[in-house]
């Protein structure tokens, strides 16, 4: 098997950030409609995993008439196997702060928050220092914009945007009903732009170099580059910025240990791709391309033949059973049934056909759960059970 081409490594995100004042000043001098158009034409999509077009999100918030609006940087990086946002906030925090300020300028907001994952408490001092320096510059530029740091408390669900708002408002971190969407009714009921750390960092690149440099990377529907958190059975775990649209086969050729059995794309809430499907799978947002295209928040976990897929799934389900907020039936009870169910099949207390009942359950969860958490449990469950059924039973 010869890979199609070498993976194209990109170096935008961690590029030197010392020009941030210049970028900020330059952007604040441009009409906000022009900035939005720049973003829209870059076709940047949210890098948290859901892939909503960023420019469009900013435009929706900009069009809201409410005089009070909020910008929130979602740094509640909780997806198992994802560790890129931590690196961004450590190495190039000024890019993120600058992007937040530009977003504030574009949509007409003066107040912003970074919602930082509870486990990242050690980033606090450095971030506070960066914020202080940044605020001073805003003052110099006569730009009324405040950035605050808000610490999460360790719940996975609080990375879901509306649960995150609830958490910030001092309530229990439970997702809200949608609609209304954050751009019209977000934090404290005000129009809110909430972007992932990496998304904001990409907007910095776009405002610095223009939309074209970004757009020229990647493939149709999946433009630009993306950070990948590579872990598992690989000789070179770490964070890599790669062009979107690569084939999984190429990826495994580059990062695998020669014995890769499957790759989990997108963390516990993503899909498991078995070896036989590496060639037909590309990494990017879903579109009208041929083959399977898998979106990801950047987590790539490689498993070699020494791994039991039953144990992998058991591990994911235990995670979901605990991290479900417990609010809606399909997710709260569904996760428990899936976990208890595969255990019962493994122990022989339920026969193998019970797996089909569980597969139908994941379908119900996908259709009816209130938020992305419950809806996406089906992804890993069905892709693992369908591809490694025998490992579930024996």
């Amino acid at each position, binding site marked *: 098997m010869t890979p199609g081409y070498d993976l194209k490594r990109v170096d935008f995100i961690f590029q030197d950030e010392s020009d941030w004042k210049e970028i900020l000043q330059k952007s604040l001098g441009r009409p906000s409609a022009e900035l939005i158009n720049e973003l829209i034409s870059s076709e940047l999509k949210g890098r948290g995993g859901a892939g909503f077009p960023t420019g469009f999100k900013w435009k929706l918030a900009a069009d809201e008439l409410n005089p009070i609006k909020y910008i929130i940087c979602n740094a509640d990086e909780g997806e198992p196997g994802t560790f890129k946002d931590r690196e961004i906030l450590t190495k190039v925090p000024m890019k993120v702060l600058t992007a937040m300020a530009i977003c504030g300028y574009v949509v007409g907001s003066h107040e912003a928050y970074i919602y930082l994952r509870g486990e990242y408490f050690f980033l606090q001092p450095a971030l506070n220092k960066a914020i202080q320096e940044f605020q001073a510059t805003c003052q110099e530029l006569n730009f009324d914009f405040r950035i605050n740091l808000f610490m999460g408390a360790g719940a996975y669900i609080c990375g879901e945007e509306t649960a995150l708002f609830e958490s910030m408002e001092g309530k229990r971190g439970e997702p809200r009903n949608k609609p209304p969407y954050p751009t019209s009714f977000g934090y404290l009921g005000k129009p809110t732009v909430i972007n992932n750390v990496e998304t904001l960092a990409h907007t910095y690149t776009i405002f610095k170099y223009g939309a074209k440099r970004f757009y020229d990377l990647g493939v149709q529907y999946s433009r630009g580059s993306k950070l990948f958190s590579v872990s598992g059975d690989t000789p070179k775990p770490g964070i890599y910025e790669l062009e979107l649209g690569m084939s999984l086969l190429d990826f495994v050729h580059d990062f695998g240990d020669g014995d890769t059995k499957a790759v989990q794309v997108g963390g516990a809430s993503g899909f498991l791709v078995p070896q036989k499907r590496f060639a037909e799978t590309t990494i990017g947002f879903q579109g009208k391309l041929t083959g399977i295209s898998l979106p990801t928040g950047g987590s790539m976990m490689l498993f070699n033949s020494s791994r039991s897929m039953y144990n992998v799934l058991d591990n994911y389900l235990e995670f979901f059973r605990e991290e479900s907020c417990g609010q*809606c039936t399909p997710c709260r009870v569904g996760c428990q049934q899936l976990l208890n169910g595969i255990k019962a099949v493994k122990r022989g207390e339920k026969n193998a056909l019970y797996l089909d009942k569980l597969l139908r359950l994941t379908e*119900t969860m996908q259709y009816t759960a209130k938020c992305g958490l419950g809806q996406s449990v089906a992804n890993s469950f069905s892709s693992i059970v369908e591809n490694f059924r025998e490992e579930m039973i024996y």
Partner: protein
Amino acid sequence: MTTKIKITINEKQIEVAEGSSIVDAAVCAGVIIPTLCFHKDLCVAGNCRVCVVEIAGQKRLSAACATPCEEGMEILTNSLKVRNARKQIIELLLSEHNADCTLCYKNGNCELQKLASDYKIMTQDFIQLAPLRKYQIDHYSPSMIKDDSKCIRCQRCVRTCAEIQGVSALTAAYKGDRMKIATFFEKPMNDVVCTNCGQCINHCPTGALVERNYIEEVWDALANKDKFVIVQTAPAVRVGLGEELGFEPGTRVTGKMVAALKRLGFDAVMDTDFSADLTIMEEGSELLMRLKKVLVDHDPNVKLPLATSCSPAWIKYIEHMYPDYLDHLSTCKSPQQMFGALVKTYYAKHFNLNPENIVSVSIMPCTAKKFEANRPEMHDSGYRDVDYVLTTRELAIMIKQAGIDFLKLDDRSFDQIMGASTGAGVIFGATGGVMEAALRTAYELVTGREVPFENLNIMPVRGMEGVREASILIENPLPDWSFLEGIELKCAVAHGLVNVKSLMDSIVSGESQYHFIEIMACPGGCLGGGGQPIPTNPEIRRKRALAIYAEDQGMPLRKSHQNPEILKIYSEFLTEPLGEVSHHLLHTHYTPRERF
């Protein structure tokens, strides 16, 4: 004018107001979408997912309660996809639920049981989760029992306690599989800020929250030949009981209720309305006394506004939340407890009964009354003043157990003594009723004239608005009350503790200056009490209120001080309002409590 939009439900095109939910819109199309976490009294949660429907063009299903209609929406409520999903969700709920239905107090009146029956869930494929947990039943409260094994986490109780009562004694705790509805630090219900109002019970779709019932205890007493069992019935019971026994909401069943109680074997059937009239005499006098002490004597130790003390959940609420304001409470016991104290003294003496052999039972629309009867200070007769408190629902259960065909009963009237009442006593059952009854009497006492409202109906204090205000100008009072000349008596009425909080806060801040406030813990007053038939919702409360006022209108006497038995008890036993006997038997004191 609201804008109308066109939508299609199950291929039928209808016009609905913009912004209405799919659940509401479906009703217009003649379609009923099953719900569980949804309740007309509460905000939309959208967490049970039983109401999911299919919207054309969308892969996922949507919760009909939480999704607003949009122009051109094509909705399917009964597609294969919907039915499969809905059935599986019900199966999931059942797998988490202790489904020993035959052993459950709510057997026959459980929304989950009904769904299981409607969708014919005949198999138990999923693993039963309830037995895997070590659930402990909280039975420490004299008012209620909380059984988490039957909880389906719909959070109706949580929303009720927060939105209607502003107490939040119950909240969601933990996450994932451990998520549960809990009190502060999972203390028992009787150790926390819970007011025992029972609204959570009234809103619980399953048997997770139920009243602590005393049905067997009362049957035992009735069967005991040595005991003389007396029952009193609260005003709101007669407009609710019918709902449990085949009548439409808002039907008055006073005579049938009395007949049924006699058939059950109670030795005397009496009326709490009597002691409601008595409350007016005592509390009205207390109000006038306080006005004199404040306005004439400038006594700094006497507090205004005077607050009513009929609602035991309100009493517990103020003890927890505003312990510095207990001096504002009327020292009058509630009508139930006045009645109880008199049964084992005045009544016993009158009929020459040994109070030791009297069992005093009360039928209340309320679960907090169970707690109230259990308070240590409620032993002024020398015995426990009220032995057993049954809710409207428990009485209905007893009537059904006794095989009484309630629909066919002939009307009977209350026994004497302590059975006569006036319209003023009846309206205690509705929010604003105590205020109205007190004004009818106090105004006449002071001026010698009837209150200046048509037909004695003091409309400004009636209605369902959370807080209502009224004022009466006092002109040409009788000589004894000349200090009230030109005084505008300012009153306020609040019901539902969340509204009470806003009224109390305005009093605490000094923003509002009232002389007299009436507080009822439950929405709509006692007619919407936690012990009333399930379901209770805004529509049903309105109907019960109409029935209460119709009952008042139909009474020959409508002012408490006209009640002949009230005149009799003062001449024979109590001598005068606020007198020594009254002080001993009819008045009480309060206890500051912690705020958790």
